């Protein structure tokens, strides 16, 4: 298994390289270093000299990919790309273009992001799986039919409407929770209740339907019929057999997401004023802060790869038959 892990990690390197190259190329097709300097230096009274100085100081004055003026080896190394990308692989993100330390910022914002994403994820999983099990239990009854209709209806509503509607009704009309904001410690639940609830509700439709299909597939198998014939109660069948055997397809979809929870949610965070990584990313895109964008993309890809590896590992836990070669 260790050999497998090492192999997977080695495999990750070229992927990260590719991601980096792609982000870099995309970003600089759009933004010249001049644009970035202008963005950072503000709107009023910006002179060409100031822009030039800013670029030199941040190291954006070099050629992007290929330095024709340099010596042999340095033609590739004395470039913006080389300068800015290599340090990433040791998780040294350096300073944002506005001069603030990215690693510290990420550290600070990870908490709020997780505080939202983790409960949403866990609660969402719980609610949808139980809802799906319920539908399966009552399969081929009107309850199942209307449950599915409800799911389809719910997944046809844009998440924007859930958020706008939820804030309006629960915070504005009913005064039950603060409409936005974030607080640590004991205050946190009051702030998190609404966004978590909306996050869960927004996901119910599609996830429930998906789990229901998986469970239905599982329930039509022979071993379930055998178990039932033995007189095992329906609930035991559902929980002991169906749920357990449906774990593999569920895991493929779910585990890969877990590490990405760190990245936070873009829309929910900005609507609820939660200072997490999602809103950091949006801010960086709007401010064209390339250092931050690149760091976030890098972290995102690392987490994605970690998720893939975790998925593979979790198979062995659920199903002992799966082994790594």
């Amino acid at each position: 298994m260790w050999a497998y892990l090492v192999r997977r990690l080695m495999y990750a390197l070229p992927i990260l390289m590719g991601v980096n190259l792609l982000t870099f190329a995309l970003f600089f097709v759009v933004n010249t270093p001049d644009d970035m300097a202008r963005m950072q230096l503000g709107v009023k009274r910006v002179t060409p000299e100031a822009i030039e100085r800013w670029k030199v100081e941040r190291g954006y004055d070099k050629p992007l990919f290929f330095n024709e003026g340099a010596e042999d080896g340095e033609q590739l190394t004395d470039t913006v790309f080389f300068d800015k990308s290599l340090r990433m692989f040791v998780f040294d993100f350096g300073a944002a273009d506005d001069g603030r330390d990215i690693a510290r910022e990420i550290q600070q914002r990870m908490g709020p992001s997780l505080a939202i994403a983790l409960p949403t994820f866990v609660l969402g999983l719980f609610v949808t799986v139980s809802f799906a099990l319920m539908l399966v239990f009552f399969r081929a009854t009107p309850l199942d039919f209307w449950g599915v209709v409800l799911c389809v209806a719910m997944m046809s509503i844009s998440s924007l409407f859930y958020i706008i509607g939820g804030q309006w009704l629960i915070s504005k009309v009913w005064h039950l929770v603060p409409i936005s904001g974030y607080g640590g410690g004991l205050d946190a639940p009051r702030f998190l209740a609404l966004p978590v609830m909306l996050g869960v509700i927004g996901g119910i439709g599609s996830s429930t339907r998906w789990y229901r299909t998986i469970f239905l597939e599982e329930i039509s198998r022979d071993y379930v019929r055998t178990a039932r014939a033995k007189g095992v109660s329906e609930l035991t069948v559902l929980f002991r057999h169906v749920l357990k055997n449906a774990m593999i397809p569920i895991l493929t979809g779910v585990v890969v997401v877990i590490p990405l929870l760190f990245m936070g949610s873009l829309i929910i965070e900005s609507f609820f004023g939660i200072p997490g990584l999602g809103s950091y990313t949006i801010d960086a895109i709007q401010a064209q802060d390339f250092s931050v964008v690149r760091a976030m993309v890098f972290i995102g890809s690392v987490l994605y790869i970690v998720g893939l590896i975790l998925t593979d590992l979790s198979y062995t836990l659920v199903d002992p038959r799966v082994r790594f070669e």
Partner: protein
Amino acid sequence: MVLTGCGNAWNDPYPAAESGQNILYSAFVNRPKHFDPVQSYSEDEATFLYQIYEPPLQYHYLKRPYVLIPGAAAQMPTLSRYDKRGDLLSDDAIAADVAYTVYEIKVRPGVLYQPHPAFAKDQDGRPAYVPMPAAMLEAATTIPDFPLTGTRELIAEDFVYQLKRLAHPRLHSPIFELMRGYIRGLSGLHAALSSAAEKAGPEAWLDLDQFALDGVEVVDRYTYRIRVEGTYPQLSYWMTMPFFAPVPREVDRFYAQPGMAEKNLTLDWWPVGTGPYMLIETDPNARMVLARNPNYRGETYPCEADAEDVAAGMVADCGKAIPFIDRAVFSREKEGIPYWNKFLQGYYDASGVSSDNFDQAVQMGGEGEVGLSEVMRAQGIELNTSVSPTVMYLGFNMLDPVVGGASEAARKLRLALSIAIDEEEFISVFLNGRGSPAMHPVPPGIFGHEPGEAGINPMVYDWVNGAPVRKSVDVARKLLAEAGYPGGRDAKTGAPLVVHLDTTSSGMGQKSYVNWLTKQLRKIDLQLVVRDSDWNRLQDKLRKGNAQMFFLGWNADYPDPENFYFLLYGPQGRVATQGENASNYQNAEFDRLFEAMKVMPNGPERLSIIRKMNRILQHDAPWIWGFHQKAFVLQHGWLKNRKPGAIVRNTLKYQRIDTAQRSEKRLAWNRPVIWPLALMAGLLVLMVWPMVRRYRQHERQTVSVTDVAGG
């Protein structure tokens, strides 16, 4: 209902411990980027920075037009002018003879800095944190984490130190390029510092005391002089800004130590000043907290005001010691809906100064009539407005072959467009009446703006029955025909005239704005093509002179007409010199008048020159004079002494809160509605119960079937 009795409403976004305290709650939308007084130049930062730093001068809080009064300075600066030979000139000498001007500023004695670790001393009287003990650096994440603090008296050298920082190569002061033209020796200092910085390496501290700045001189402990080339009357306005605030050398030394920047322990993050407040919590993503500076020199609330302000009770606190408020908590609110609702629920005491988000809620009639709804008025919400020193305009690129140039045809085309685009309708639809149409660049409240018939733009307006009336569309059509486009078609080829507008897509309601503009141009049969791009692309086009028409705004630095007319000054041309004249307007006579007007004191003579300048501009129509926005502040009844006025930014110290009234109102407005919770619980039971029953039935059935099978 019982729960609400114990102090806080359910939806109170603040910790229970804070309730009932003398804290002001407000919000900010954009994340402040710089707190270093040499770099900060945006409104987002000014909200905080002007409360922390005290520059030599400040504006009088209540008087309009704006009046300068001493801040950290003991009195207004004395000004002496010299000719080429270095002889002192008399007060009535004309500006052309002046070779240089010397400002002498006396600093108030006995002013102390806020408590700060940079001033802390150990038992032996040496700086406690320079060099920084490794353990301390390890432990500290914020400035309040340092256990030892100290203070020091404000001296003239601190101001000089900051002026030197303007030239610092690593700080990129936005006004360096401007000031190097006026303050002697700034360019030389910049060169010296640049080479020294190169030698010392990127991390090393540069001791600015080792470098000389010719144009600035410390006379004694409390006096310093600034020498300005020629005359530059606008310098006094700059002296109200943090660019001219004091920065002690100790502080610079303290923050420059290795390892500090990685922990965000920098002057750019933790400012140190002598002002009424100090920053005690700084998380630009979520929350900024200002607390009263215990060492503040003390000031009293102003007593002079207009009759209107007196009637509004603005001088009720006359002569009382300020600041009133102990703390100010600013929360970040990016989305408009939560911002607005929290305000309505009483969790923000007032709207921000530049809160576009609140536009939707407030409407106003023609003459500043307050348009708060009944409900809001019943809540005791008040609306204050004042014209802010801004101008929004649709500029023509004067280098453009169609709309630009000095030709009569192009001029008439520009005038036709100026008449066709109905700014009054724009103000009413998009600004809910909060704006006044511009006749020329200078907004009301600033010298050079005239009310009444004398102040209108005769090219676009007629004076009818004591009010300006926009000329009719027929006049525009006629002008268009004279320009060679009868019926919006080129007289020679019959091709329709297409006007291109460059905008940025940011901002809400951009689509409706474009639709509206298309509608305006259709009135005179012109076709509008909107080229929408991001801010950088627009700037790029302006720089290269590729734009045709563009929508821009200018927010004044200081209340002087120079700060508006320079936007049309030839040598500021964007394409030629990358200056601020984005329409590349060039008129020799205008430039000559501008140069004369710039150095004049306010008075009849200056006004007559400004009139001439206005006539030239109105004739040439390089801009469609858009509108001046009205700043407005919505506030709850418990917040006292708040006066809007974009130029005066150190407003926090004057404001006062009736905390008892606030606590009471907040509770009353935010009674939680509990029945939906009960309803939901009930529904859940109703849903689960039949299921459970069905399940039981199901189980029983199974059992009975097996029984039968078994039997």
